[in-house]
């Protein structure tokens, strides 16, 4: 029988307000094996920890039960404290009498009764605890960044500057992401490309950074410190080592009518293309879906004009497998599909555009060379209506329930720049709420109203209908005036909601990283661990975690990098000793555990076993790689013969807890 000490925490009034802690300590003191039981105001405080350590020494305790907050909060704290007093840290159990008891009960009698039961269960478990020793695993000193937008690039640069190797995997033909498509940045109005492209070049030239552009993550194996990732390098049909990026092929290709993704389909590119002038890597790519040569075998113009002989129609996708210590997700966002909102007429009129299309229409490298012209007839628009919250804050199936965060500011920017460049233009902005928290943000929005005379109208646009004369009839609410407005607009700009990139969900499955209902990656703790995924070794950077603007993205990218550096500087990681182990004598070789293991930690091997007649017979049995096992327990509940057990959470321990609760 263990000599057990019980320590009941008040947590100020968090626990003591609804649980009679003195009674709990007294009741638990009567449990078999308990030789010491007490309560204290804050067990996690230094004085509280000292109290536990003194009790361990004084009463020669072999097991400790702490009735306090969730083990997620302070299990590590108490384990460390007990280890300092010479107790094996895995002889400590935490009974959660805060989150699972005092916070959810109002009645003191009920709360107290439940706290006693939870304490009893923990005591029953400690009786069966065995000391465990944590092993160690090495750390591969290289990081993988998935996504080459501003978030991914900044994370990669920061990690590389600390001296670690970084690979960037970008699914498009160039890095740069959404920021490359933006014309100006708020609130300073500096040119987006001018501050982005030097960073792209830095990434390309950094000796520690390797860019896999036009590539995707195929699969991920392993665990923190030891990930093994297969990267699919898609065929460009152009030899990267030979292409000089001269662009002659992109001028001579006869397939001319492919919508140019970089300009949001508002002009055309050829089948062989370089996304934009400052692309990194600046290498041509053949679009296999539209190339005549690849589809029909007839053409080959690009091959003839290429002076470097870089065109290779026989190129195949290539799978590269590399090892990483840490993975950063920076998969970014897209604007939602506006064609689903019939009322805004996006599908009916070319002159109803999204804000990202507006960025391209005002950009010098855009389809109009930077002059704001209507897409339908190329004329100057004189009345422009901006509509905010198109699909954001919407609980309908077409929309997104969250605020997209960036739209208020970029709409103010668009409205201001339009009035600055074309003072004869009437600009309306329809808003539900104007949200501009941030350094110099509200001043920026007010400048649009006060200095530039943008008409901000509180209300929503209900209908946009194209008229025969080419104008757009906009019907909207002015809630402050109590009127319905009818505006004849030349251009309507929709600030559509943003959503995580579609590739994020598949990637989350590969990484076993969790997501919320909107497909944003969840962080390990919303306040205190905002750049880490709950999956160890996976970090989050940029909009894949939630809507954010460029300064926030860059700050978060740096934070993710610092966490990665903190991991990669370690030579070895302490493993979790609470891993599965198989009892070979009970294992029937069914492979059930191998199939459910999400980490690939279980393999089968054939071993000789002695029979009743002392003869040897070979049998297939499961074996667990403790360095790979994460202790999730999926195998233990799958195993039909009861051979698989989890150290620290054995079947016996869990049954003992259940028995104690039901007693």
């Amino acid at each position: 029988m263990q000599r057990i000490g019980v320590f009941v925490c008040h947590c100020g009034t968090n626990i003591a307000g609804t649980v009679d802690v003195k009674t709990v300590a007294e009741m638990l003191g009567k449990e078999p094996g308990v030789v010491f039981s007490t309560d204290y105001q804050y067990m996690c405080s230094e004085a509280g920890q000292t109290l536990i350590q003194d009790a361990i020494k004084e009463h020669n305790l072999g097991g400790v039960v702490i009735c306090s907050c969730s083990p997620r909060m302070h299990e590590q704290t108490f384990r460390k404290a007990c280890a300092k007093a010479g107790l094996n840290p895995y002889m400590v159990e935490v009974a959660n009498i805060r989150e699972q008891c005092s916070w959810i009960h109002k009645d003191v009698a009920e709360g107290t009764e439940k706290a006693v039961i939870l304490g009893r269960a923990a005591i029953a478990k400690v009786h069966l605890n065995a000391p465990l020793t944590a092993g160690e695993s090495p750390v591969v000193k290289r990081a993988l960044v998935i996504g080459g937008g501003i978030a991914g690039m900044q994370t990669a640069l920061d990690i590389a500057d600390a001296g670690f190797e970084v690979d960037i995997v970008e699914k498009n033909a160039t890095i740069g992401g959404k920021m490359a498509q933006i014309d100006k940045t708020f609130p300073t109005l500096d040119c987006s490309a001018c501050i982005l492209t030097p960073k792209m070049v830095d990434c390309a030239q950094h000796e520690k950074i390797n860019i896999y552009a036009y590539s995707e993550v195929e699969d991920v194996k392993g665990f923190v410190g030891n990930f093994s990732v297969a990267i699919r390098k898609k065929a460009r049909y152009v030899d990267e080592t030979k292409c000089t990026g001269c662009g002659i092929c992109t001028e001579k290709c006869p397939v001319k009518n492919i919508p140019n993704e970089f300009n949001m389909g508002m002009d055309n590119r050829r089948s062989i293309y370089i996304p934009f002038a400052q692309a990194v890597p600046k290498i041509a790519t053949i679009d296999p879906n539209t190339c005549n040569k690849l589809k029909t075998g007839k053409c080959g113009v690009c091959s003839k004009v290429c002076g470097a002989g870089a065109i290779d129609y026989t190129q195949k996708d290539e799978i590269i497998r590399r090892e990483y210590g840490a993975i950063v997700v920076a998969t970014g966002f897209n604007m939602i599909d506006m064609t689903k909102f019939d009322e805004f007429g996006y599908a009916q009129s070319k002159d109803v555009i999204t804000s990202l299309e507006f960025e391209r229409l005002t950009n010098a490298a855009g389809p109009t060379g930077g002059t704001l012209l209507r897409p339908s007839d190329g004329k100057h628009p004189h009345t422009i209506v901006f509509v905010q919250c198109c699909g954001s804050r919407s609980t309908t199936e077409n929309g997104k329930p969250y605020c997209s965060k960036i739209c208020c500011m970029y709409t103010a920017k668009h409205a201001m720049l339009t009035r600055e460049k074309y003072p004869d233009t009437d600009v309306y902005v329809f808003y539900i709420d104007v949200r501009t928290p941030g350094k110099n943000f509200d001043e920026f929005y007010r400048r649009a109203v006060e200095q530039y005379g943008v008409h901000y109208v509180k209300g929503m646009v209900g209908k946009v209908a194209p008229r025969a004369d080419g104008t757009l009839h906009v019907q909207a609410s002015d809630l402050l005036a109590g009127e319905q407005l009818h505006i004849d607009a030349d251009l309507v700009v929709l600030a559509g909601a943003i959503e995580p990139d579609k590739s994020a969900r598949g990637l989350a499955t590969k990484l076993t990283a969790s997501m919320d209902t909107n497909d944003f990656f969840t962080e390990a703790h919303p306040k205190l661990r905002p750049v880490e995924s709950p999956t160890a070794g996976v970090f989050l950077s940029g909009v894949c975690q939630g809507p954010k603007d460029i300064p926030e993205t860059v700050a978060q990218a740096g934070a993710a990098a610092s966490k990665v550096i903190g991991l990669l500087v370690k030579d070895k990681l302490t493993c979790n000793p609470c891993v599965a182990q198989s009892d070979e004598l009970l294992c029937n070789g069914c492979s059930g555990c191998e199939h459910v293991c999400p980490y690939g930690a279980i393999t089968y091997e054939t071993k000789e076993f002695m029979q009743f007649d002392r003869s040897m017979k070979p049998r297939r049995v499961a074996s667990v790689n403790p360095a790979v096992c994460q202790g999730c327990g999926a195998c233990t509940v799958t195993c039909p013969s009861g051979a698989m057990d989890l150290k620290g959470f054995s079947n016996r321990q869990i049954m003992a807890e259940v028995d104690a609760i039901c007693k």
Partner: protein
Amino acid sequence: MKIDMNKRDSVIRMTGINPRTCMKCGKCSATCPSFDEMEYHPHQFISLVEAGRVDELMASESLYNCLACMACLERCPRGVEPAKFVEAVRNLKLREHGGNHLAPEAIPEMLDADLPQQAIVSAFRKYSK
């Protein structure tokens, strides 16, 4: 200004919608084709019901100027469905006229093979207390 929380609760019960989900964006009133004919606009129906000021709505011609085109219901980004609130207040007004206009005993005589069951249920909702 009379506040009647019982009427508010009746309207909410009839619509099955919590008016607090309205974020006051005005898209319903922006889309309303009868806006100019209505004293109270769709978004005001929501606010006034929420405030318990149902009597003002019941006294207003707006109840009958709503075309029940359901555009507000279709376009509301929060699923508040203002047209249902207009309809519920209308029902409240109809029921107020007192007396049962439809007794269960009268039903068998009216029945014929073509009468949809839905019509009976709906008639009870409107004309019976």
